[in-house]
């Protein structure tokens, strides 16, 4: 998807008339669509993620659930979250694939003070550039989904890249490729929103989930990872915030108040400098007496003598 027009057909041999589909452009925004209703919790996506990103096999944490570990880690970007929930007196086992949501308005990027440590591509992927990361951790508090994770060894922060390296070559992310049930989809944002909507409608009309809907939170301009949920009114049951928000202070503070603060400091330096060269020092008193008035400026004195 680096250049969506690369494989656009330009000419066709021995074809009469115009080239069909000439000049069409695909939308560049990509999206991962996760249908939690058909996820079986097999964790193939977790393994695929670890494999593709060449992460070391790490210890799991058993906490009386089927979850591999309590939360995603700096080298474990893809985690199925298991929630045991109740619906109409029956147990409901909710499985949600947790990873970076690649927000349209990314809180991590808003919060990051380091030049070039977080970038967002035209296709919507939000990527960390660790060579520019200063490890301050602002992104961690900027993220409404608790995704960026700190590596104690490198002192930098890591997260899911939506396999930007694969997507750049026209491939789907590794998790999508591994999914055996087809609950994971990858394509353009508009296509994914459409099939997610269709699936939600099917759940509402056919499967008896009257509140089924698509999770694509508008409070952050939508995300490039969307879900269909059995009940869109209570995303908290899946561990998703209902109205993810980015602290507005990040934007205003970083781009308004911080530069003004520095400017004031700079003006303060100039002020004391010019105070010194104009008003001068406060010397211990009595200081040496000033030169007597008539000898003050010899040139001026001579000029006065002349008629």
């Amino acid at each position, binding site marked *: 998807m680096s250049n969506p027009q690369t494989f656009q057909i330009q000419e066709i041999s021995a074809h009469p008339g115009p080239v069909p589909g000439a000049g069409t452009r695909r939308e560049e925004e990509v999206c991962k669509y996760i249908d939690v209703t058909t996820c079986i919790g097999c964790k193939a996506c977790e393994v695929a993620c670890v494999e593709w990103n060449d992460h070391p096999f790490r210890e799991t944490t058993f906490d009386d659930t089927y979850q591999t570990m309590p939360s995603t880690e700096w080298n474990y970007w893809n985690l199925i979250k298991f929630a045991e929930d109740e619906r109409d007196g029956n147990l409901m086992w909710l499985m949600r694939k947790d990873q970076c949501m690649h927000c349209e308005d990314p809180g991590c990027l808003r*919060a990051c*003070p*380091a*030049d070039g440590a977080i970038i967002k591509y035209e296709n919507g992927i939000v990527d960390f550039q660790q060579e*520019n*990361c*200063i*490890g*301050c*951790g*602002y992104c*961690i*508090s*900027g*993220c*409404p989904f608790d995704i960026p994770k700190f590596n104690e060894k*490198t*002192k*930098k922060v890591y997260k899911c890249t939506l396999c930007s390296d694969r997507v750049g070559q026209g491939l789907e992310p590794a998790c999508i490729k591994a999914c055996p049930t087809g609950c994971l989809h990858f394509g353009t944002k508009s296509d994914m929103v459409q099939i997610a909507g269709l699936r939600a409608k099917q759940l509402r009309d056919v499967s008896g989930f009257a509140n089924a809907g698509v999770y694509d939170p508008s409070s952050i301009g939508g995300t490039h990872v969307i879900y269909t949920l059995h009940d869109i009114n209570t995303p908290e049951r899946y561990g998703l915030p209902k109205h993810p928000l980015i*602290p507005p*202070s*990040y934007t205003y*503070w970083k781009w308004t*108040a*911080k*530069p003004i*603060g*520095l400017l*004031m*400091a700079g003006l*303060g*330096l100039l002020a*004391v400098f010019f*105070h*010194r060269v104009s*008003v*001068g*020092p*406060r*010397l*211990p*008193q*009595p*200081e040496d*007496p000033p030169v007597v008035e008539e000898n003050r400026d010899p040139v001026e004195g001579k000029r006065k003598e002349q008629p």
Partner: protein
Amino acid sequence: MSASVDRFDERARREADRFGETTVHRGELLRHPVYTRVLHWLVAISFVLALLSGFAIYSPWLFRWLSPLFGGGPGTRVLHPWFGVAFDAFFFFQFLNWFAPMAWTSADRRWLKRLKQYTTHTNRVEPEEVGFFNGGQKIYFWLIVLSGLLFLITGLLMWFDDFVGRWIVAVSYVVHDLAALLMLAGFIIHIYEGTSHQPGTLHSMINGTVTEKWAWTHHPAWYRAVTGRDPQEAYELEKRRQAERERAIASWEREQNAREES
């Protein structure tokens, strides 16, 4: 402050004077004992380190060139809180040491009203009520107390952000920066006043002494307290003696000129 703090301060000053020395020459007064000086420079060094590393985190696009001093971006981030802890810890002792003379009085309120005359040098000699510290110095001291507390609270919240909500952390960043900007403003004025604007002041923080002239010019009430002499009278006397010296030199020069001509 309680008597135990006073006892602690006195003991610390005595111990510091055992390994350090302050020589008071003729015409000089002891202003800062060894303990105060050492504390001041410990606070100053740790503050400057925290400030420089803080700048590299505050806006890396502008101060990225500072981070190599601390081992690169992440290294800066790792060291910064420790500089801050050192600053707060050293300043805590300076707080105990200076708490008493930094108490705000009505004389300081009047000093503040004269701020404009002070900056424009309307009066070259401070009014007689100005004591060991003037109103501006006291404001800076209490500003450091406030900022130091804010640094500590918000700094710990950011340092251990695993245990607090992301909104608290987000507010902490802003408050931490505000405290730093406030202190930076005071710091710029402090360095200017301590060096270039008031000659003899840096000397007092390095050697511990000031000239009597410096004392009655900038802190007359303190001059009276340590010498028992009236600062105004001492100033007038010095002024007369200086005029006499000038006259003596002038007459000597006239004699010399006459001798050379003959």
